[in-house]
């Protein structure tokens, strides 16, 4: 840390800043200083870590009965209006727009609509009238929540899941992972850290995620940002994931950054 008097001042108030208890004006001055002082930023970052660790020492609590159900229902209610609006966006792009990032991705909305349609068929079969009264989409999701919380775990079950390690296009060790769940809704999650051997200068920019069939043809799933080689992304996928054998990440100019061979893993639940 330099001898800049402002740095000395920040030494005095850094702890309060990191704990979030510094009054407004002092906080504004401190933040302005952090914008131009990397040493002080690091100092406060370490103090912030202390604050986080302190909170981490607090004891766990016992949730009230039905808490997880109530919360899941609340999330379902919030998801329902988004479903009803039926926004149409390019796949995988919706949540990249900062104005939309507090909402679920457009693909997910489509997935919810699809689920709602499937649930509607089931609804006809059981002749449940409540759907009209409470709003269909919310009901569909709420029902799913009930099933999840109420259904006893099966004694023995198998479920396919696709997994793969991302490796750099130039070869080398794993730089990320892909999880793909072919169920309904199908969704996938990609995590990369393109910073190791075999990678060029850490990439910063938009990355396109493609799924690859056995014959080499691809389907674009969506885009996500990568900064300094690091990125993570998840999205619903309107496709039969079991038909794909690989995943590929490309830069905005089409350069392949990393690829993954998708392997079908099997979840086997031993009988107890």
């Amino acid at each position, binding site marked *: 840390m330099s001898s800049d008097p402002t740095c000395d001042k920040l030494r*005095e108030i850094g*702890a*309060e800043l990191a*704990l*979030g*208890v*510094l009054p407004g004006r002092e906080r504004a001055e401190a933040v302005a200083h952090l914008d131009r002082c990397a040493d002080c930023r690091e100092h406060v970052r*370490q*103090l912030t*870590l202390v604050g*986080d*660790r*302190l*909170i*981490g*020492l*607090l*004891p*766990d*609590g*016992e*949730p*009230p009965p039905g*808490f*997880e*159900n109530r*919360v899941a229902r*609340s*999330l*379902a209610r*919030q998801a329902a209006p988004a479903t009803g609006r039926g926004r149409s966006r390019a796949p995988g792009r919706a*949540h990249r727009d900062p104005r939309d*990032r*507090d909402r679920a*991705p457009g*693909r*997910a*909305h489509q*997935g919810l609509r699809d*689920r709602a349609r*499937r649930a509607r068929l089931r609804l006809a079969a059981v002749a449940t009238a409540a759907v009209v009264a409470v709003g269909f989409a919310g009901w569909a999701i*709420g029902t*799913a*929540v009930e099933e*999840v919380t109420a259904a006893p*775990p*099966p004694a023995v079950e198998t*479920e396919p899941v696709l997994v793969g390690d991302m490796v750099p296009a130039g070869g080398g060790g794993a730089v990320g992972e892909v999880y793909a*769940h072919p169920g*309904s809704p199908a969704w996938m999650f990609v995590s990369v850290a393109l910073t190791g051997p075999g990678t060029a200068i850490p990439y910063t920019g938009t990355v396109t995620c493609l799924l690859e069939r056995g014959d080499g043809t691809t389907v674009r799933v969506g885009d996500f940002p990568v900064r300094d080689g*690091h990125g*993570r992304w*998840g999205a*619903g996928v309107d496709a039969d994931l079991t038909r794909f054998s690989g995943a590929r990440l490309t830069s905005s100019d089409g350069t392949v950054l990393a690829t993954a*061979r998708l392997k*079908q*893993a099997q*979840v*086997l*639940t031993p009988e107890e």
Partner: protein
Amino acid sequence: MIFRGERSGGRAIPWRPSDVYRGVSGSRFPVGRLPDEALLSGLATGDPELAVIFVRRFQHRVIGVAMAVTRDPQLAEDVAQQTFERAWRHAQIYDPRRGSVMTWLTTIAHNLAVDAVRARRTEPMAPEDLEELLGVVTETPERWALADEASAQLRAALARLPREQARALMMAGVYGMTARQVADAERIPVGTAKTRIRAAMAKMRAVVASPKRGDHVQ
């Protein structure tokens, strides 16, 4: 068990029966053992099964933080619910380089709890609550030490702080009290309150930065 095919070389990842759930369409989702980040990403897609599993995984931690700060079961539940709603809304902006999902969630819960208490009470905490909580967070039973050595060292370091510094740190760090509020509560000058907070944080920082040297912090 989950077997990752030939690439795994026979390696199996344990998979509990309760980690497999029935979904809307009748298919089953082996999501219970997904990494926290993957689960958060799945949550952002609006999947209701993932929402339940996400809440189930983190609810004890979130409730614990909310309860410690608010000391009010109803308010703590409200805060915890808001925490999960906020996590759901902002799942896309979570940055793993800035901390784990657990840390991110507990930070949200803590901020909401402090704000909720500020909005409802003039006194952020009762003195007896502070002493009780300080006793809990400085407790270092062997089971905790074995489970998480770093946290055990942090608890021990907190226990070794001069009592007045530990109190000031808890007031600011847990209850979100400003130095002025700490000064009023302890009936000391504001400058003294600031000094106590700063000194305590400096000692704890030394432990966090070099956990193995934690025993030598003065």
